[in-house]
């Protein structure tokens, strides 16, 4: 009898130990692009591990490689448990094929935590597939050195000519007017795409006509002009002589601005937090202004951003769901915005304390309501999908290997290729 009892006790111990080990042995892999993650994600992942015993292995991929690598992994059927990608309602099918690759998260409680304007970007066919926790700051406008502008008597430029004049004055002081970088593959596309509202303003209904294939990019003179102006800025040295070697890391951007080597850059307002953290003695004041290429004065409204998805073939779907639950709890949302090195706000429906900057409010309050316009990548089909390819083309334009018109033709060709493959009736 005693012998049997010992066997039973031993068996129960073995089962119990095995269960604990199995729980604590779960590791979720999460793949994210370098520019989208900060130490706050690692801190939250660690807190999640402490609470649940589930480890989160965050794999940070250089921005220039993340998109291609993730797509290659998805296409090969070897994606990580959780992955990040930037989508929009037009792109989600092409970018992700969510029915095949993503777990349907429509019934998760946290769906209502997201701003309803953001939900279409992570949805397909009335099902929610992603979790977008992103900020609502003015996105990629000119972040500039207010002190320097005042010293040189430069007014905030509202036209392209005024921007050129400002750049000339700054350049004459041996300061790089604009810190620009192409090495990450995506940043150089922003001046062209963030002013999408201006195209719409100049040619009302242009987004619809582009989406219905009634007009092509190459037929839009303002788009050609925008690229020509970007090329002119590079040729005139406004980006600096060696801007193609700029790495675009936060440290380098912050260093260039805070030490007065560069006067402006296209960035989010949260950059000021990075500058204050890295250079607490920096006495410059900072401000924001809209991208005045082709005299644009529209505000780049973009309800889309990078979002997390759970891979359908993952073995850790339940653990990943727990992770998403954890990230969207009120105290963790508050933790995120309190500790994020760049963000000033979080676009969620939960009542948390936001940290808007005065310069953000100053910019937003100045802009008339009718100037809030959807950016190109969120308003026009089959553009976001080729963002990195357009980046390559723009870089080629900067070195003189491609003409602005060729870039637009390439965009049209790639749009047609995707549209035909999908079977878009407008391209048949």
């Amino acid at each position: 009898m005693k012998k049997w009892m010992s066997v039973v006790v031993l068996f129960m111990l073995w089962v119990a130990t095995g269960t604990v080990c199995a729980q604590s042995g779960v590791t979720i892999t999460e793949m994210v692009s370098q520019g989208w993650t900060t130490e706050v994600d690692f801190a939250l992942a660690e807190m999640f591990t402490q609470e649940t015993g589930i480890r989160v292995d965050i794999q940070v991929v250089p921005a220039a490689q993340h998109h291609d690598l993730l797509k290659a992994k998805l296409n090969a059927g070897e994606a990580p448990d959780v992955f990040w990608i930037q989508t929009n309602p037009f792109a989600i099918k092409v970018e992700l094929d969510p029915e095949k690759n993503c777990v349907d998260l429509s019934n998760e409680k946290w769906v209502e935590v997201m701003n309803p304007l953001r939900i279409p970007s992570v949805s397909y066919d009335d099902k929610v597939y992603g979790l977008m926790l992103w900020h609502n700051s003015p996105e990629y406008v000119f972040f500039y050195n207010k002190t320097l502008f005042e010293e040189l008597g430069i007014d905030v430029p509202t036209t392209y000519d005024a921007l050129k004049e400002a750049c000339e004055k700054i350049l004459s002081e041996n300061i790089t007017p604009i810190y620009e970088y192409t090495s990450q593959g995506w940043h150089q596309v922003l001046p062209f795409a963030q002013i999408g509202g201006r195209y719409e303003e100049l040619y009302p209904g242009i987004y619809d006509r582009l989406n219905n294939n009634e007009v092509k990019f190459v037929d839009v003179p303002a788009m050609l002009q925008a690229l020509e102006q970007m090329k002119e800025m590079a040729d005139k040295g406004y980006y600096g002589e060696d801007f193609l070697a700029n790495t675009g890391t936060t440290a380098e951007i912050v260093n260039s601005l805070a030490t007065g080597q560069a006067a402006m850059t296209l960035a989010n307002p949260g950059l000021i937090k990075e500058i204050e953290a890295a250079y607490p003695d920096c006495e410059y004041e900072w401000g924001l202004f809209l991208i005045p290429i082709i005299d644009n004065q529209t505000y780049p409204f973009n309800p889309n951003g990078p979002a997390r998805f759970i891979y359908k073939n993952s073995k850790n779907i339940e653990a990943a769901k727990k992770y998403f639950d954890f990230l969207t709890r009120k105290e963790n949302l508050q933790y995120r915005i309190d500790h994020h090195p760049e963000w000033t706000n979080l676009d969620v429906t939960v009542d948390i304390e936001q940290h808007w900057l005065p310069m953000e409010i100053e910019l937003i309050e100045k802009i008339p309501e009718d100037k809030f316009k959807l950016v190109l990548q969120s308003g026009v089909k089959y553009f976001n999908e080729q963002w990195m390819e357009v980046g390559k083309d723009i870089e080629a334009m900067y070195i003189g290997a491609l003409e602005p018109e060729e870039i637009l033709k390439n965009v049209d060709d790639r749009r047609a290729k995707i549209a035909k493959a999908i079977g878009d009736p407008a391209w048949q």
Partner: protein
Amino acid sequence: MKKTKIYSKYFVLPGLVLYIVFFVVPSFIGIYFSFTDWNRYSSEVKFVGLENYRAIFASGSNYLSYVRNTLNFTIISNIVKIIPALFLALLLSSNIRGQNVHRAILFFPALLPYLVIGLIFRSMLHPQTGFVNNMLRTLGLDFMAKRWLIDPKWVWPSIYAVDAWRGIGYVMTIFIAGLSSIPRHYYEVADIDGANFFQKLIHITLPMLKPAITINLIFGITYGLKVFDIIFVLTNGGPGRMTEVINTAIFKEFALGTYGMGTALSTLLFVFMVVVSVLLLKIMSKRELEL
């Protein structure tokens, strides 16, 4: 007398089956898909004949420049590695002091992962803050400071230089192995006849080194045609598309989901490698037999 046991030929079957299932069949399927428009946007796969190949070889196409870049890389990277490696091998086989240490130092870069090499050299070759330009400026050689990885004129030479830094030690090691197998008395006889260094090099060393040269050429050419890592980590095909090669293009086609084009490029690469390797083996083995 010891008997030689002959095993049944059926013993080869498991290996043969694995080879056919995992290599031959996928290769032929891949070749078939290169004639289709297979992509991830559509479940229908249409046969398009030579359309993908026509797109690759169309005049002015980006793909054609990637093929050209790959062939140029294959030729030039071998020249810049094999010739210096041969002389280094000769130097380090001539009983100089500390030759084993020098051999180890020269071989060491071959052990480093490409990612590490890419990160180090991208930083070293930065036009403003990089070690190379800073050193040149310190030495008063400002005119030699270049925009190494961003200037279209200098980007390829920079890649060749980094590739040579990594690969010379490996090529040299194969040459050293080849040199050690040359009988010493050939040189002793040549010395008696009054032959100088170059005469010995031309008439003894190089002919006797042909197997090592063949190996280095085959390794070098297949490496050159398949090159991916060093380009990916140093320039990612840039600036623009100046340094894209076939394999970086294949990677991007698969990422874009245009599998048909990706497999067409892979097939093309496969054909190049087969043709070049077979030709090279025939030429070199014929010469080796003549010896």
